[in-house]
């Protein structure tokens, strides 16, 4: 089996992720033997294969069920009742988290945000998405699965728009709540931008995009025209355009909607970018959680090839050739970071690369590569169609255009909002019918946690930049629990390459939990802030550079929460020291009780 899979990918080492995904989905795990066989088929070392297998969370070395259930463990899902839903699955299938039933039929796991926070709690059942779960619906689903129904047939009611397309047939809903003029407007005709681009020289295309003021929508906000110009200018034999559809930031799901409803616009955008820099190859890096969209996207690519919009010489381009392949992810948030994404496309562990050199000079396979977010690429098509000036007429001075916001949490209307940059948080909260909002997380865990005093701030690069996630938390939510959940996410998702992020985040979480559990001391905030400074300054990539933001922004925004949970140490003692807690550890090690602190010492043996 392994050899067949390897030859399907020409035993190309660069396609290791695809090969392992195939093996995982057929054999439900990647065994020691499979690792050896893959290594010998590809002519690489087994520890290299093992390194990749153990990096991505969708690969498993012990068998998963033929039906693998992955419950989304995001804070939004937890608040929406994920635990109760998990309980139902667990009881109905007779397995706990991380377990596989003895007959090999089912496995149950928790997984990081699957991009469905607007319809939480949600789960993945193999590649199918089960959104908006309740204990009741979970029970019905579990029953059907036990009766032998395949995951593909679980849902009869499909979602809106293309979610009910024959190649998607998913229960997911788009939840488009605010339609803007640039990306979600109903009358967008794909193909127009591409046509206009081909009428111009590549240089002019870059100029048009630069002139529009478009900045990257993946979070960092790098000027897109400048990125294209840099990749174009660097001398090279080959060049690449990669679309970043990893969308892993918890609470973000707007790319899901664009992939579902604006795929043609996206592929137009990739083709325009390729034309602009002279690339002949493109990759769409699609997160594993969005596998349910793959068949649909592949079909669109095939159709574009058939109609001359992709391939050797593209229709209307006078000799320009370009094609796109889909690279699936395998469960790793860090692969959204552009250089880690490139590593992953090369079949490596999804670790960021040293920069410089930057991807625009040495990216995929060492060639100039432009990596752009889904939304950025869709914007490129519209800019070419309607002109940079039209685009720049939306938004603010430094933030041209509109932004798709993924709104989730304690609000009446979670979903996708396309609003011009510059929108105030307060205006957005009204639109989404927020329920007594007290905390808003702008930009997901790596963004800023803000409280009421900051609700007049604006969503734009000049003030509150965001990749699109806006999580709303009502007054009854516990700020520290949110911080703790975000740190847990970063600890799970750190690639582990560098010391500060790998170790420092664990220490941050330990201290937050100490405070949460009532053992906080006044000095703890200084400790957290100082540790955060070191992690931010010394980390190798954006993950570590931002992972402490939930800590620092919550200390700054909610000092009273911390004050109420921390005590002044007295008489030189650690206020956070709890003799019973310390003893508990000793009791376990010594397997006996304390003569002094355990009252009933001697009354019974301490073997408890």
């Amino acid at each position: 089996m392994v050899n067949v899979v390897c030859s399907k990918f020409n035993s190309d080492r660069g396609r290791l992720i695809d090969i392992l995904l195939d093996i995982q989905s057929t054999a439900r795990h990647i065994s020691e033997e499979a690792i050896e066989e893959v290594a010998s088929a590809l002519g690489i070392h087994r520890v290299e294969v093992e390194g990749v297998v153990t990096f991505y969370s969708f690969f498993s070395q012990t068998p998963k069920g033929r039906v693998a259930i992955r419950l989304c463990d995001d804070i939004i899902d937890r608040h929406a009742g994920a635990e109760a839903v998990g309980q139902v699955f667990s009881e109905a299938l007779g397995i706990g988290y991380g377990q596989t039933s003895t007959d090999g039929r089912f496995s149950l796991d928790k997984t990081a945000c699957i991009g469905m926070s607007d319809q939480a709690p949600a789960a993945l059942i193999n590649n199918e998405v089960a959104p908006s779960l309740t204990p009741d619906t979970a029970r019905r689903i579990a029953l059907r699965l036990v009766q032998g129904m395949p995951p593909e047939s679980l849902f009869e009611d499909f979602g809106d728009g293309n979610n009910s397309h024959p190649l998607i047939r998913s229960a997911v809903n788009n939840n488009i709540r605010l339609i803007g003029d640039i990306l979600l407007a109903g009358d967008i005709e794909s193909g127009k931008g591409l046509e206009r681009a081909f009428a111009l020289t590549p240089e002019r295309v870059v100029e048009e995009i630069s002139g529009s003021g478009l900045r990257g929508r993946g979070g960092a906000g790098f000027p897109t025209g400048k990125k294209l110009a840099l990749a174009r200018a660097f001398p090279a034999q080959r060049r690449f355009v990669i679309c970043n559809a990893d969308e892993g930031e918890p609470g973000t799901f707007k790319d899901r909607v664009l992939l579902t409803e604006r795929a043609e616009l996206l592929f137009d955008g990739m083709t325009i970018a390729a034309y602009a820099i002279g690339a002949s190859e493109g990759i769409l890096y699609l997160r594993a959680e969005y596998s349910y969209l793959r068949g649909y996207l592949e079909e669109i690519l095939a159709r574009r090839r058939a109609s001359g919009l992709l391939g050797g010489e593209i229709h209307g381009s006078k000799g320009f050739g370009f094609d796109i392949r889909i690279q699936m992810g395998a469960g790793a948030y860090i692969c959204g970071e552009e250089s880690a994404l490139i590593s992953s496309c090369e079949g490596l562990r999804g670790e960021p690369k040293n920069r410089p050199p930057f991807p625009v000079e040495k990216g995929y396979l060492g060639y100039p590569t432009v990596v752009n977010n889904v939304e950025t690429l869709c914007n490129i098509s519209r800019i070419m169609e309607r002109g940079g000036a039209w685009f720049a007429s939306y938004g603010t001075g430094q933030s041209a255009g509109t932004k798709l916001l993924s709104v989730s949490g304690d609000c009446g209307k979670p979903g996708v909002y396309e609003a011009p940059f510059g929108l105030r948080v307060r205006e957005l909260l009204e639109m989404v019918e927020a329920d007594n909002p007290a905390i808003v997380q702008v930009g997901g865990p790596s963004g800023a946690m803000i409280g009421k005093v900051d609700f007049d701030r604006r969503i734009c690069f000049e003030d509150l930049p965001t990749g699109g996630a806006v999580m709303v938390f009502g007054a009854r939510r516990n700020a520290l629990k949110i911080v703790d959940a975000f740190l847990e996410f970063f600890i799970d998702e750190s690639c582990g390459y560098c010391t500060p992020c790998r170790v420092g985040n664990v220490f941050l979480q330990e201290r937050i939990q100490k405070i949460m559990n009532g053992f906080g001391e006044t000095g703890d905030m200084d400790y957290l802030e100082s540790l955060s400074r070191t992690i931010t300054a010394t980390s190798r990539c954006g993950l570590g550079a931002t992972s402490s933001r939930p800590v620092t922004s919550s200390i700054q925004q909610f000092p009273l929460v911390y004050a109420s949970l921390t005590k002044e140490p007295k008489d030189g003692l650690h206020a956070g020291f709890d003799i019973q807690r310390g003893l508990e550890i000793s009791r376990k090690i010594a397997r006996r009780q304390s003569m002094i602190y355990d009252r009933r010492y001697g009354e019974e043996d301490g073997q408890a």
Partner: protein
Amino acid sequence: MARHEAFDGGEETRQRITFTIDGEKITAFAGQSILEAADAAGIYIPRLCDVEGLDPQGSCRVCTVKVNSRPVASCVHPVSADDVVENDTEEIRRWRRDLIKMLLHEGNHLCPICEASGRCELQAMAARFETLEPDLYPYLQPVRPVDASHPDIMLDTNRCIRCGRCIRASRDVDRKYVFGYIGRGIHKRVGVNATDLAHTRIDLDDAAASLETCPVGCIIRKRVGFFAPIGRRQFDLQAPGDEIEKRKGEGK
């Protein structure tokens, strides 16, 4: 591959440039790493994952400096003309101290019973940054099995700082690929290219097994433990960096 070739960009860059470290003017080749240029000038930048003879990796971050106010890892950052580099400042020393502490608390560093004591770079670095006492950081206390399968070499990754020096030495110098990274995040560790060390091609003559490779006490030679008496161990005699600092004034 020549060390730091990645930065040399191959052809263009053998031209001389100048920049400053803590105000001192330094001459370097454009594209050379900051750490390498500093070494040549007799200025020691503390480091753990970087070692002479292997390509730099940039993972421990102890060599962090500020370049034009921005923190970067100096072992993997190419120098440009007129860069203003800060190295020995209070802020940077504090970062480095924190990083050393993180590594000390991540693994099981019971120095008095460790075979590498006295020649351990982590221990020496802790002394340099005055972190010899435990502090508020928690201990993570890993419990990974020790691999004693090989007749001559033992691997105890409970002290591993993930510096990858063994991996690079085995891959690039010995051309054997005995070691590789496994897992991710806090569970990232060093694995071997077989079921255990005995089934790999490692032997005592390998660069990967040399005393210079593992900066701590993970790769241990059997039967030759504690070979130097206290007072005569490597770092009893001189601290890491002394050699480099000696270059200064010798006109390099």
